């Protein structure tokens, strides 16, 4: 009778446990009860018992020779005792160091925040460094005069530009005084310099307070023409309002155009010198090679 298909692997394991006396008393009693009920299990036990007995009865092979060590063999074995593990560990340690170095460099370069530059990029537009050729080139490419923005001195650094009337706004709180042209341009060509009727100014509309000084602020165009604008923001000190901000572009100043490509990020220095990396890689390779040689020589 073939019991192999009838008995599950779990039952077979239980059977082996029973055969090798590895079951607890309780489990043994339970299994014996099952044995009486299942003829397949009984047959399997019979076969397994026979197999075990046969295996145990295998004759003991006599040794072909003594396996004892002579003095020279022992000396030779002792010599190689530390070499293999030493080189093995050395290669592992150097490889791990390399991995740590490369890993940390990768992490720093990939996930670190961009470096904060002390001087805002706008400041680079100021006085120096940009050749006039860049301006000419930009004009050629655009096919029309290029308007340059000079952020000098008015409105401070930072701020948003646009029709920024606010304190420290990028365009200096006026329409056009800071808009410098590469060439003198009639004021009417500059849309921003056209006098804007105060009633058109959206910002003035919601004014309710009677304390707001009316029509006191004066700005100027490039041509020196002064325009009057309304105070725009509540909270301005009165003495600040109405100041004439008369900024003419400095003719001696060289206006510059700085493009994104021109802004060269300073080259980051690697955390670990390249020489050290090469030395570590070389050491790791050498240790591994010696370890492999020793291993295969054995």
């Amino acid at each position, binding site marked *: 009778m073939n019991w192999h298909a009838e008995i599950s692997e779990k039952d077979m394991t239980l059977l082996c446990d029973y055969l090798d006396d590895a079951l607890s008393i309780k489990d043994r009693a339970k299994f014996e009860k099952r044995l009486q009920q299942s003829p397949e299990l009984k047959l399997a036990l019979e076969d397994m018992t026979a197999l075990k007995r046969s295996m145990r009865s295998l*004759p003991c092979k006599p040794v072909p020779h003594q396996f004892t*060590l002579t003095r020279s063999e022992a000396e030779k074995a002792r010599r190689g005792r530390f070499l293999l593990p030493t080189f093995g560990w050395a290669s592992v340690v150097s490889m791990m160091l390399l991995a740590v170095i490369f890993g940390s460099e990768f992490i720093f370069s990939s996930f670190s925040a961009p470096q904060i530059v002390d001087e805002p990029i706008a400041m680079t537009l100021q006085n120096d460094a940009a050749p006039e050729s860049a301006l000419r080139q930009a004009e050629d490419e655009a096919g029309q005069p290029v308007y340059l923005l000079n952020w000098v001195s008015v409105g401070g650094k930072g701020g948003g530009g646009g029709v920024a009337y606010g304190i420290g706004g990028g365009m200096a709180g006026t329409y056009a005084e800071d808009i410098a042209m590469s060439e003198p341009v009639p004021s009417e060509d500059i849309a921003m310099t056209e006098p804007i009727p105060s009633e058109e100014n959206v910002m003035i509309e919601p004014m309710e307070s009677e304390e707001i000084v009316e029509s006191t602020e004066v700005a100027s165009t490039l041509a020196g023409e002064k325009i009057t604008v309304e105070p725009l923001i509540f909270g301005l000190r009165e003495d600040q309002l109405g100041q004439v901000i008369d900024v003419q572009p400095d003719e001696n100043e060289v206006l510059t155009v700085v493009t994104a490509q021109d802004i060269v990020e300073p080259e980051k220095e690697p955390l670990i010198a390249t020489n050290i990396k090469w030395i570590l890689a070389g050491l790791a390779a050498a240790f591994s090679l010696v370890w492999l040689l020793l291993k295969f020589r054995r």
Partner: protein
Amino acid sequence: MKCCLVGLSLAQKAIMEETELITRAVDGDLDAFNQLVLQHQQMAYNVAYRIMADENAAADATQEAVISMYRKLDTYRGGSFKSWFLRIVTNACYDELRRQRRRPTIPIEPETNEGELIESPEWLEDKSAGPEEVLGASEIENAIQHCLTGLEQKFRVVITLVDVSGEDYETVARIIGTPIGTVKSRLARARMKMQQCLQGFRELLPDQFRHITEENDELAR
């Protein structure tokens, strides 16, 4: 009762002697080490032979195990010396089997001495013995060894250690470095495969295999 006490004291004496030999061997006494080798070499060689199924390979593996044991003596942390040594022996067998797989030693002679190509060279023949051939030698040992060799390495090691060497599950688990559950399942599958394999021989030798006589049982003990 007296007999049991004498037996116990003999076993204790043997353990103490072994412990002393180990201590001396760890201290560098080669004679003590060789005495340990002499005590266990038979068992080691037999386990290696059943795993390798080849006398020369088993001898190589045992010698390697002895050298390895000498190197690792200072890492021995007590417990059963026999199972520690068996662990080294099984590892040496694994290494030897790997080496054999890398460099098979089958002689290739596809040509005669005259340089003519042999149509069916000797090395193409299947030399593994069939059931009839094995039984022709009328040795149940050959049949068992034949089936044992056909087992996967991991099953062969477990069944050899449990059924041939007589180790318990816990010791085998320590030797091969796996949990006891793995040992149990591997043993169950190994026995099942062995039994299936031996069925081919059993038809010819039903009583001899299935109903082992009491004499055989005594012999096994």
